[in-house]
C-alpha cells in the first residue's frame, strides 16, 4: 500500500523546518567523522577498513579511466621520437660522452670507498628491495595530495614505505590493501619528512602545505642553506633511508625556504616503492637479548675484608721533603677476632 493512502497519508509537516533539522543532523554527523579522523597520525590502524575498501574499488575504475591518457602519451612519444630522431641522437651522444667520464670517476671512487670500508671495518646499510607500481589516480587539491599505486600487500608493501620515481622521493605509503596502496605525497599538508642540505649537512623538516613546493622548517645551523642547494633525506628517525634525492632549495615568495621537488620533473605514472624498514629493526632481536653480559658482583664486607689475603708488607719509604710522613691514628680496641695489622686498617668497619 502506498504511503499516501495509509493512515499517515494526511500527515503534514513543515518542509522547511524538517529540511533544517535534516541539515543539522547531517552537519553533526560530518563533525563526528572529522573528530574521529586520525589521518594525520599516519598509522596503520588509523587508515581503516572503509578507506581500504574505497581504494580497492577505485583501483580498477581509475586504472581504466587513466588508460586512454596513458596510451595517448605513449602515442605522442612515438610520434615525437619519429620526427626528432636526429636531434635526439645528437643529444644522447653528447650525454653518453659526459656519462663515460662520470662512470670512470664513479668506479675510481667506488674502489677508494671499498678500501676505506675494509680498513675501518665499516658495516654499511643492507640493500633495499623495491616494488614497481603504476599510479592510477592522483589528487592534487590544497587539503589532500595523495596517489593510488597498483601494488599492495601482495608485493610486501607496508605502511611507511618510501616511494620514489626516477628522479627523486615522491612520498610514503599511508594505506595498504591487496593490490593497491595509498601514497601520501611530500606536498600533502600532513606530510613531515626529515631532510638535510647536502652541502652543509644542516637538518630540517620538509613540511607539505598543499602547494607544489613544500617548506623547510626547523632549519638549523649558521648559514645552512643557499639557493639551489640539493636537499636529500637525512634518515633521522628511521622513517626513510638516508640520502634519497628530494629537490633543490629555493626562496619562496613568502620569504621561507622551500624545495622544488626533483620528482616533479619526471612522469608521474610509474613509481618505485622501497620495501624499507628502519635499519635498527633489521638487527637480530633474539641475538641481542641472549648476549652474555659480565656477572654483576656485589661486595661482601666479611669476605672482602676479614678473609682477604694479607698483602705483602713493604718497608716504609724514607721520608723526603716532598712526601710528608703520614701518622697512623691510634688503633681502637678490637672486640672481635684480632685482625692482623695490615688487614685491619684504621677506621675499617668491624
Amino acid at each position, binding site marked *: 500500500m502506498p504511503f499516501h493512502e495509509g493512515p499517515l497519508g494526511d500527515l503534514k509537516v513543515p518542509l522547511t523546518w524538517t529540511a533544517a533539522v535534516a541539515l543539522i543532523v547531517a552537519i553533526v554527523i560530518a563533525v563526528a*567523522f*572529522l573528530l574521529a579522523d586520525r589521518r594525520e597520525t599516519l598509522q596503520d590502524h588509523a587508515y581503516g577498513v572503509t578507506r581500504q575498501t574505497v581504494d580497492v574499488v577505485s583501483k580498477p575504475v581509475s586504472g581504466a579511466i587513466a588508460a586512454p591518457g596513458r596510451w595517448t602519451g605513449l602515442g605522442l612519444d612515438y610520434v615525437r621520437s619519429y620526427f626528432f630522431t636526429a636531434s635526439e641522437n645528437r643529444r644522447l651522444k653528447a650525454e653518453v660522452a659526459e656519462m663515460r667520464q662520470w662512470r670512470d670517476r664513479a668506479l675510481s671512487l667506488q674502489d677508494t670507498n671499498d678500501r676505506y670500508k675494509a680498513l675501518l671495518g665499516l658495516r654499511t646499510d643492507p640493500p633495499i628491495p623495491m616494488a614497481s607500481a603504476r599510479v592510477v589516480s592522483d589528487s592534487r587539491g590544497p*587539503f*589532500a595530495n595523495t596517489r593510488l599505486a597498483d601494488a599492495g600487500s601482495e608485493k610486501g608493501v607496508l605502511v611507511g614505505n618510501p616511494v620514489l620515481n626516477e628522479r627523486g622521493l615522491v612520498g610514503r605509503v599511508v594505506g595498504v590493501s591487496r593490490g593497491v596502496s595509498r601514497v601520501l605525497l611530500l606536498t600533502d599538508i*600532513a606530510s613531515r619528512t626529515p631532510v638535510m642540505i647536502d652541502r652543509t649537512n644542516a637538518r630540517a623538516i620538509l613540511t607539505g602545505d598543499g602547494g607544489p613546493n613544500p617548506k623547510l622548517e626547523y632549519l638549523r645551523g649558521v648559514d645552512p642553506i643557499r639557493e639551489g642547494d640539493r636537499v636529500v633525506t637525512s634518515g633521522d628517525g628511521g622513517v626513510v633511508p638516508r640520502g634519497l634525492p628530494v629537490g633543490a632549495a629555493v626562496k619562496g615568495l613568502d620569504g621561507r625556504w622551500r624545495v622544488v621537488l626533483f620528482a616533479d620533473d619526471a612522469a608521474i*605514472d610509474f613509481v618505485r616503492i622501497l620495501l624499507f624498514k628502519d635499519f635498527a629493526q633489521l638487527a637480530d632481536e633474539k641475538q641481542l637479548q641472549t648476549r652474555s653480559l659480565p656477572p654483576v658482583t656485589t661486595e661482601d664486607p666479611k669476605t672482602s675484608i676479614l678473609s682477604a689475603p694479607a698483602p705483602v708488607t713493604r718497608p716504609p719509604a724514607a721520608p723526603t721533603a716532598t712526601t710528608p710522613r703520614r701518622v697512623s691514628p691510634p688503633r681502637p680496641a678490637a672486640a672481635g677476632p684480632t685482625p692482623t695489622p695490615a688487614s685491619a686498617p684504621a677506621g675499617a668497619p668491624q
Partner: protein
Amino acid sequence: MSMRGARPLHPARWLGIPLLVCIAATIVFSAPLRLWGLQLPEPVFAMVPAFAWALIRPSILAPFAILVLGLFLDLFWGGPTGLWGLSLLVAYAMVLIARNMMTGQSRPMMWAWFAGVTAVAMIAGFLFSMLDSLAMPSLLAVFWQFLATALLFPFAHRLVDRFDDADVRFR
C-alpha cells in the same frame, strides 16, 4: 486545471543522477595526466549540486546526499574524513538561508553568488583543515581550486533551470 506540476519530484532524478555524475567527473579528473608539465585542474564538482539543490527546493534528503558526496571526496582523495562533507554542508546551509534573495536574479549575478558560496566552502575547508592537521594549507593552492570550481557555474545553472519549476509548490 492540471495538477501535473504539483507531482512530487522523484529524488532519483534531481538528487541521484547529479550525485552520480559528480562522482564520475571527480574520478575522471583524478587521472594522472600531465601535458607539457601541467596537470589537470581539480575542481570540486560537488559544489554544483550543493548550490543547485538548495535553490531548487528545501529537502530532507539533499543534506544527506551532500554528506555522502563529501565523504566520497574525502575517501577518494585521501583527505581527512568529514572535511568536505562539512564544508559542502556549510555552503548548502548558506544557500538555503539566502535562497529568497537569489531566486530570479540574472545569470551574472547568480554566477557571483556561486563564486561567493564556493569561497565560503573553501574557507570552511581551510579552517577545518587547519584545525585537523594543525598546519596552514597553501593559500595559492586554495585559490586555484576555488577558481577551477567557480568556473563550474554553467552546470549549476543548468541543474537549477532543469528542476526549478518541476514542482509548482516551491515556486
